[in-house]
């Protein structure tokens, strides 16, 4: 036993010798090194500086194209009034509620259709047909049914979140490697154990992709919902800015949408990478 272990170790590092060392060093330590993240920042920073200069120089009309500093001022002003925090809280709550409802429904449905062929043949065509309805087409109906209150907005967001989560999880379940399922059969797992111990873990990477695109759509739909009829929320703030002719308020809202969209996506990404890192996969 001892010998075989030694052999394994030898196989693991077969080409470890002095000659390869200098080469490796040359590749990994160049003299001037710009962090990768900074390269991507160069263009936006340049853009903001140009904008600020053009706006201050009076070349851009300040009421249509407010300077970045004016926008920052607007943000601070809204923040001080406590107004902004309230709008953000409303929008975040709507996105989260819609995301949870949509993702949960999608997970349950895809779990059922993915594991039972008969249910899949029964339900999947209808779900696919519903998918081809442009989601915005639901708006009038939801407004009629649920009024202009929270529920119609959350319902719209849920519809947006539902489809990417459903489709990705289902395709993840259906494309699970048959060979791994066979291993489960060899060890005499019953149907439920097979789903829990083989199929769900194997479908997890596609599920994460679905959750991320679902969240993206959730943010898209909250804007739509709030623009169409709301008295609070970042979408409302944008409409308010439009009505009162304050471009800086609109742009400030856009910046906040981008910020929160990115943050929530990063939360899923980080959680996913923690769970997927051990497969050698990183999203």
């Amino acid at each position, binding site marked *: 036993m001892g010998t075989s272990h030694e*052999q394994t170790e030898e196989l693991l590092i077969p080409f470890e010798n002095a000659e390869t060392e200098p080469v490796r060093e040359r590749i990994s330590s160049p003299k001037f090194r710009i962090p990768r993240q900074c390269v991507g920042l160069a263009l936006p920073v340049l853009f903001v500086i140009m904008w600020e200069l053009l706006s201050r120089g009076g070349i851009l009309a300040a009421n249509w194209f407010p300077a970045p500093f004016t926008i920052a001022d607007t943000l601070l002003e809204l923040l001080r009034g406590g107004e902004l925090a309230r709008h953000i809280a409303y929008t975040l709550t709507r996105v989260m509620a819609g995301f949870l409802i949509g993702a949960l429904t999608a997970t349950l449905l895809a779990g059922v259709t993915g594991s039972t062929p008969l249910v899949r043949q029964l339900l999947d065509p209808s779900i696919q047909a519903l998918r081809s309805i442009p989601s915005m087409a639901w708006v009038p109906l939801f407004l009629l049914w649920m009024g202009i209150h929270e529920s119609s907005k959350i319902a719209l967001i849920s519809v947006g979140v539902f489809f990417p989560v459903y489709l990705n999880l289902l395709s993840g379940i259906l494309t699970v490697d048959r060979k791994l399922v066979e291993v489960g059969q*060899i060890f005499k797992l019953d149907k439920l154990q097979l789903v829990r111990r083989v199929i769900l873990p194997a479908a997890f990477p596609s599920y994460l992709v679905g959750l991320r695109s679902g969240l993206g759509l959730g943010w898209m739909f909250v804007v739509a919902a709030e623009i169409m009829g709301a008295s609070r929320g970042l979408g409302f703030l944008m409409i308010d800015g439009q009505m009162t002719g304050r471009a800086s308020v609109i742009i400030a809202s856009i910046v906040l949408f981008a910020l929160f969209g990115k943050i929530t996506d990063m939360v899923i990404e980080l959680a996913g990478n923690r769970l997927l890192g051990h497969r050698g996969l990183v999203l």
Partner: protein
Amino acid sequence: MSRAALDIQGLTKTFKVNDDTVTALQDISLTVSQGEFVSIIGSSGCGKSTLLRIIAGLETDYEGTAVFGGTPIHGPGLERGVVFQEHRLFPWLTVRQNVAFGLGNSTSANVWESVDEHIQLVGLNGFENAYPYQLSGGMAQRASIARALANRPQALLFDEPFGALDALTKIQMQQEVLRIWQAEKATMVLVTHDIDEAVFLGDRVIIMSSRPGTIKKIIPVDLPRPRDRGSYEFTQLRSAIYAEFFRQEDKPFAYAI
């Protein structure tokens, strides 16, 4: 090596391909004693893997009888461990969790004892917490052998287990399998397309011919172990099996003295 572990009589297996019926196996009869090491060799498409899948219980629709340990085979069973050509480890589990996979949810001490014992047996100690993507091909295949062994099966079925490994790792793994066989005293059935491997490992070599898959010849290998691949007897046996697949004059570089 007395009682029959596996008894196959008049086994025929047909597949439906579109509207045609293809006979994969025809009238196979084979008895394997307990603790015996049997190699099944044949060219690709001869049905040797199908035969192994029937023994494993993964194919249940066949004619004839296949009996393992006194009971007819109707599905997989924990007394028959399988090692596939690909390692088929679960990528989200560590080596240790993979090896423990078939032992159910029980976390009792003797379960982990058996797991660690078999990890040690295949020489993977030190890699218990590694994930499959961190292993080389040979190490992954060792882990998959440990997983098949952890349930202490009476028989171990190998489906071209070393086909995807490089030549040196392959020879090393063949020696490991022999060592494991002697340690566990299990019945071994090995499907391969490698003549050298079949002779080196088997007590008997079953030669199969293709379309339909039938047993063409059974050659006993009465060579003492450990076997010397370079010995005269070994080479003779290898040539005899070679001649079953190719005509003598096709042989490149054959005895051109």
